[in-house]
Every structure is written in C-alpha cells, then in structure tokens.
C-alpha cells in the first residue's frame, strides 16, 4: 500500500529545476505530482512519477543527490472536510505527519493526499481500520 517518492536536493539558483525537468522529459518520464520544500539556500523537490526506477537511474547518472522515501497516498472525496476526515483519525491516534501535499484526480471527484510519516506501516494500519482509502503505489503511478 506504500508509494515510492523521489526527493532531489536542489540549490536555490536559476536553472536548478529546469535541469531536472529536462532530464525527465528526455527520459520520457511523466510526473504524477510534486512538491517543493524550500529554505533561503536550498530546496528539496519531491516527485511521484510513473517510472521510479528509471527516474532514479537518470537523475543519479546526472549526479543529483536523491533519496527514495516511502509515502502514503490517501484518497478522499474532493469536498469540504475531505482532508479533515483524515487528520481527525491521525490526530486521534497520535500519528505525526512529517509533511504532506495534495492534488485532485483527473475526474475531479477525488483528491489524493500524499503523507510522509515516521512509521508508514502503522499509519496505513490505522487509516485502513478507519475505512479510509489508501492507494497502492502501482495505482498512483498509472493514474
């Protein structure tokens, strides 16, 4: 039920992001969703892509510092209170969120929230027991 995410270390300088998108374009890799965490000096680009292995390979070849992390994708109806229904459960079980980001599915009916937890297995367990929809990686890569 877990999702592989690729994080890339980037300096805050013009052209930094463009190098990554060009490499992915040339390798014919499709980005499903992304987020950037930034400070004044550096940023971390986090990607979910259609082909994890190929992405790791081409970025490593180009000398990028990358890390593979496990995240959890939760699908909720795209309406008021959607995110809250997840947070309520997490909060009730004292589960800490390291970071999260979200996107809306093509159909427009559902939103997908990507979570980074300290302990993803425990979090998935709690989410499933509370009848929330956890998307498997394969499903997300091919959305």
């Amino acid at each position, binding site marked *: 039920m877990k999702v592989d995410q690729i*994080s890339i*270390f*980037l*300096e805050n300088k013009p052209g*930094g992001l463009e190098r990554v998108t060009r490499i992915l374009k040339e390798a014919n890799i499709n980005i499903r969703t992304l987020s950037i*965490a*930034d*400070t004044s*000096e*550096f940023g*971390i680009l*986090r990607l979910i892509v259609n082909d994890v292995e190929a992405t790791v390979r081409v970025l490593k070849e180009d*000398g*990028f*510092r*990358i*890390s*593979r*992390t496990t995240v959890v994708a939760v699908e909720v109806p795209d309406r008021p209170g959607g995110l809250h229904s997840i947070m309520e459960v997490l909060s009730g079980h004292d589960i800490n969120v*390291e*970071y999260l980001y979200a996107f809306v599915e093509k159909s427009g009916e559902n939103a997908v929230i990507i979570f980074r937890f300290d302990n993803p297995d425990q979090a998935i367990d709690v989410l499933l027991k509370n009848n929330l929809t956890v998307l498997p990686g394969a499903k997300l890569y091919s959305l």
Partner: protein
Amino acid sequence: MAVMIYNEEFETLPREVLEALQFKRLQQVLQRVYHTVGFYRRTFDAAGVKPDDIRTLADLSRLPFTSKQDLRENYPFGLFAVPMSSVVRLHASSGTTGRSTVVGYTKRDIDTWSELMARCFVAAGLTKNDIIHNAYGYGLFTGGLGAHYGAERLGASVIPMSGGNTKRQIMILQDFGPTAICCTPSYALNLAEQGQAMGVDMRSLRLRVGIFGAEPWSDQMRDQIEDQLAIQALNIYGLSEVMGPGVAMECTEGREGMHIFEDHFIVETIHPETGAVLPPGEEGEIVFTTLSKEAFPLIRYRTRDVARLITAPCRCGRSHVRMGRIMGRSDDMLIIRGVNVFPSQIEAVLVGIEGLEPHYQLVVDREGTLDTLEVQVEVSERTFANADEVKVLQKMERRIVKDIKDYLGVSAKVKLVEPKSLQRFEGKASRVTDRRKL
C-alpha cells in the same frame, strides 16, 4: 616636539653596533637550541652545519628553515628550549587538536615582550598619561595579553576590554575616554559604524590614536578608520610563533613600514619557492630568527607573509629596518577577523562529521566592515539518501557551523550545495575564493 623612543639606546643603535649585537646573540641562541632542542640538532646535523660554523650574520642562510608544519609536528611542547618549570605562560594559535601551535614564555620572555609592546605604544606617541582601550581578544590568542602587558609596562592605564560586546565597548569609549585603542582594523570600522548607528558621534571621542594589526589591511581602510574615528591609525605586526604582537611597529613620524625590533629578531626576505635570500627591498617571504627568546626560540621561521624590507633611514631616528605592508601569503592561510584559518582545518572539521565528504569551497568576503566566511559543502549521497527533510539538512548546517566555531574560533556561514557544483582541483589554493578588496 622631540621624537619619543622607549628604549632609545637599543632602538637607535648604529647599524654596525646593531649587527655586532645580533651576531653575538645569534651565536648564543644557536648553541642553546642545538644543545637543548632535539629538532634543531637533527635539522642542523642533516644540513651539515654546526653552530660554530656560523661565523658571520650572512652565514645564517646556511641553516635550515623552520616551518609551521615543524611546529605542528612538535605539538605541543617539542620545540621548547627550557623545562616547563621555567615557563610562566602558554599561548596557542587556533586549530583542531594537534594542528595548533603552542608557544611558551619564561619570566624573562614576558619582560622582553612587554618591553617591545611598550616600544610600540611609544612609537605610536603614547605615554603613561594615556588610557588604552585594548579590544584584542584575551586568552590563548597573544593579542590581548601582549598589548596589556606592554601598556602596563609603559605605565598607561589599560582597559582590558577583549573582543565582542560592541555596544558595551562603545559605552566605555564614551564614558572612560580612552585616548588609544588596540584591535583589528576591521573591528575598528565595525565599532565606528555601530557607534554611528547608535547615534554616537564617534569623531568626538577622546581617542587620538589606534594601533591595528592581526589581519591584512589597506591604505584605503586606514583612511576610512582615520576619517570615521578622527584618529591616527597605525600598523602593528606580530605573530604568536615569533612572540605575539610587537615584533614590528609603525612610528608616527614615518608611517611607512613597521620597524622590526632588530635587537631581538633577525629578519630575512626569501624567495618563497627557492628559499634563496633576497636583497633588501625585494618583495619576498619574511623569515624571522629570534635572538633573545628563552622558552621558544625560533631559527629561520618562515612566516608565509610576503612583504618587502625598507632599509632607508627613518625620520624618527630608529635604526631598525622596516617592513612594508603585508602583500599576501605564500600559502593558503586566510585571516578572518584576526583569526588564522587554513582550508585544511576546515577540511578536518568536515571529515569529522558523519556523512560529509570533504568537497568544499571557502568564500571570503567583506560585508560592510567585517570579514565573512562562507563554507560551501556538497551534500553527500549518504546524507541525503537517509533524509529528505529540510530539518535534517538544517541540523547538519548548524552542526558544521558549531564545529567550525568550536575548533577554529571563527563564525562561518554554511551553505549546502549540489554535488559537482564545486570545481575539483588538485591544488589547495583554489579551494578559496577571496572577494575582499583589501
């Protein structure tokens, strides 16, 4: 007004008398180091020279050089020429363990040093009626205590301010009314600027003279300091290995080059690569031999400072040769706010931190009046593979900043950079980008 000279007899010795004195003292120190310091016995023997072979001052060039590396290899007390029971003071330059250099002083060494610093103050026009604000750092660094003892020897009133706490320094400059100040030139400018920012008229303080050293500075900076503080700014030179501050000092009369106290030191300029002694007046690396030091005598010590000697007589009447402004370094040492920093020391700190690779670049700049040091470090594969979180990387940055501060005593800014964004070089000097306009 008559020129004031602290030790008129020794500071104005006619050249031939001075050289005879130097030679007599040189013979004594060579005998002493050869018989008491294993290092000198070994290097002299390896060079096939015995102290008795040195029959003139010019023969000095037959002796091997002593380098900073030799000092490090004999850390901490290997080059001391007296037992510890005769040592009354220790000082050390900054450095990671085993890399700093330690110097010792006997009671008589402290007396000599105090006298030489007193000579410096008198050359700056000071008397016992002056109040000296001493903002050189007190501690292992020789600046603070060196200037302090000299001021007391002169009989002046010394304010042992040490470095830092700039607002308090400005308050004391206003309230105690010191007439002279000792610090690094960049700190003098910092004081001037902060004082102005606090609404203090820094030109109307009682200060009339400043004795600045421990870092390279330019004539432009001198003009700036003189203008902003309405004082006369003078240059002082020294290094802990040779003694500390007070090896050489500019006089108010000449203001062109610093008189080297030649009754206590022999100075040579050499070609940094060949080691050949250069004729006076040619720019080269400055080499010192101490003539009177008991605890830590040095023979032909390579300072790595590049300057030229001025042999023309000075208006002040001192017969001692002068050294011009430091034009640069013949190695990669950086001087950041008065603290000596070698890129190799930064490297030692970086490799000591788990998960870091020693790929780094140092960028030295000057923001306003203060030197800044930025350490650019490549994020290693291992570090990033284990953590994709901002907080982990920021924690790593803070750790590097703290370790550099702890080991080297200098505040640096750390910037994590992408791999290979730093150029790979074989040489060391290219690790450094110095953007300061001195």
